[in-house]
């Protein structure tokens, strides 16, 4: 990671809310993302890990300007130092910024996957590029003639990944690109992302797979209940709980099948439940009365960031 490289993407205090109706007339607001911050520089892979439903996919959609209708957002989003307005998002989307979506339902079910990956570009060199990307991702040549329903889960993910890899986008946001792939295929897919980063692009890798994140990313950002709770170097996760800062990150590490398979009780507070203090307090072994007063701000600690008053 080159600290001095200019930031490609900056997310600062992002929040996303959904309007919802209660009964016939009453309306409420659901705060799905409360306070997210992160930075992606050219040449690096930043992995985002954390609880399912912590807002990881919404972050990707917010950056791309693809939030579901009914969502409102605030906080600062900047691309190459300039604010990302809806107009700028439309201009940059698919050109400067590309998304590898999580749900395989984003593939057009009525279109063969080859033309779909080429994105309407019918020039022969584009077909060549598509074939080269497929070959690299271990997709057989005849795959391009298949429809999405004929693909296995892992094949569909690789097709989704090729849609982003084939372009020239500077910023790639890969939302869970590897589920359904065998370990070797997943490593190959992330190897491609790492090479793209090496060539000067920035990659935001949203994943549940901590092991892959540790192997391929430079830094890891941990989300919990719509907030950033820790920013760490991948090496800190490789070193284990003692090197990590937030109790949630430590619990996440201990829950891996090879590290104890420990199921910390409880679930993250739901977006609808207002909690005055630290959002992790109800499950936290370090909780004290002070934790229930206010949600602590992010602070620097041991070369990373943490949102916890007890972390040392």
């Amino acid at each position, binding site marked *: 990671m080159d600290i001095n490289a200019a930031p490609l993407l900056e997310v600062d205090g992002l929040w996303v809310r*959904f309007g919802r109706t209660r009964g016939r007339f009453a309306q409420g607001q659901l705060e799905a993302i409360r306070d997210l911050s992160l930075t992606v520089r050219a040449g690096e892979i930043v992995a985002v*890990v*954390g*609880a*399912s*439903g*912590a807002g990881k*996919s919404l972050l990707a959609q917010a950056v791309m300007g693809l939030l*579901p209708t009914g969502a409102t957002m605030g906080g600062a989003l900047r691309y190459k130092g300039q604010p990302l307005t809806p107009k700028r998002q439309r201009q940059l989307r698919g050109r400067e910024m590309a998304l590898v979506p*999580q*749900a*395989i*339902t984003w593939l057009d079910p009525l279109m063969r996957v080859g033309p779909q990956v080429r994105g309407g570009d019918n020039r022969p060199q584009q077909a060549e590029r598509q074939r080269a990307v497929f070959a690299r991702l271990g997709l057989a040549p005849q795959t391009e003639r298949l429809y999405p329903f*004929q*693909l*296995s*889960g*892992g*094949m569909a993910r690789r097709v989704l990944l090729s849609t982003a890899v084939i372009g020239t986008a500077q910023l790639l946001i890969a939302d*869970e690109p590897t*589920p*359904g*792939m*065998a*370990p*070797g*295929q*997943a490593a190959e897919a992330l190897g491609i992302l790492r090479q793209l980063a090496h060539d000067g692009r920035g990659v935001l890798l949203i994943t*549940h*797979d*901590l092991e892959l994140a540790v192997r391929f990313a430079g830094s890891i950002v941990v989300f919990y209940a719509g907030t950033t709770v820790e920013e760490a170097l991948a090496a800190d996760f490789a070193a284990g709980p003692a090197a990590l800062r937030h109790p949630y990150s430590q*619990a*996440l*590490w201990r*829950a*891996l*099948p*090879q590290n104890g*398979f*420990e*199921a*910390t009780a*409880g*679930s993250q507070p*739901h977006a*609808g439940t207002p909690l005055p203090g630290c959002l992790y307090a109800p499950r936290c072994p370090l909780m004290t009365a002070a934790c229930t007063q206010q949600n602590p701000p992010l602070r620097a600690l041991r070369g990373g960031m943490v949102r916890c008053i007890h972390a040392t």
Partner: protein
Amino acid sequence: MQLEAANVTFRYTAKGPAVLSGVSFAVKAGERVGLLGPSGQGKTTLARLLAGHLRPTEGRVLLNSQPLPAKGALPVHLISQHPETAVNPRWKMRQVLEEAGAPDPDMLGVLGIEPEWLERTPGMLSGGELQRFCVARALASGARFIIADEISTMLDAITQAQIWQHLLAHAERRRLGLVVITHNPALAQRVCTRVVRLETLAHPAPNSASAQ
């Protein structure tokens, strides 16, 4: 009880390639069999055959040595790798759950399903949240065999551990048979009583089946 695929071959189209060719596989009540293998080799196809979602081109799927019953609730339940494709997008989650029978409120708590989610449609929930509903639905369905096709790859590690410990406790208590499809060897080692690789299940000379 035993669920068995006996020498099954499957093609998606009449002239297409055989996705599975002469595969035999069996799981007994109380067993938890891990099924490993590369992507695109037919693990999910085998899961769909075992659950009766597809019929084999050749060979048979047997429950206690009988063909799968054509009528009534099948005691084999498949939990899909893509929860967003396994729920009706226009239904509220309450309807989705009740499709398989009344949910046990305790189970919702253990699986971390918030009561408020029941009033939402699938589009308003994350993949991990939807998968908890699919697990709850599978356990409420009274199935004797559960086929878990990559059910926790889209979940964070803590949720994965929670869901599996819940599923394992149920499987143990009710002597369910489980087929666990996964790419994670560490997970297979944790949750399975034995592990097989798909490529070892086909009979020798798989070409003889396609030549007929």
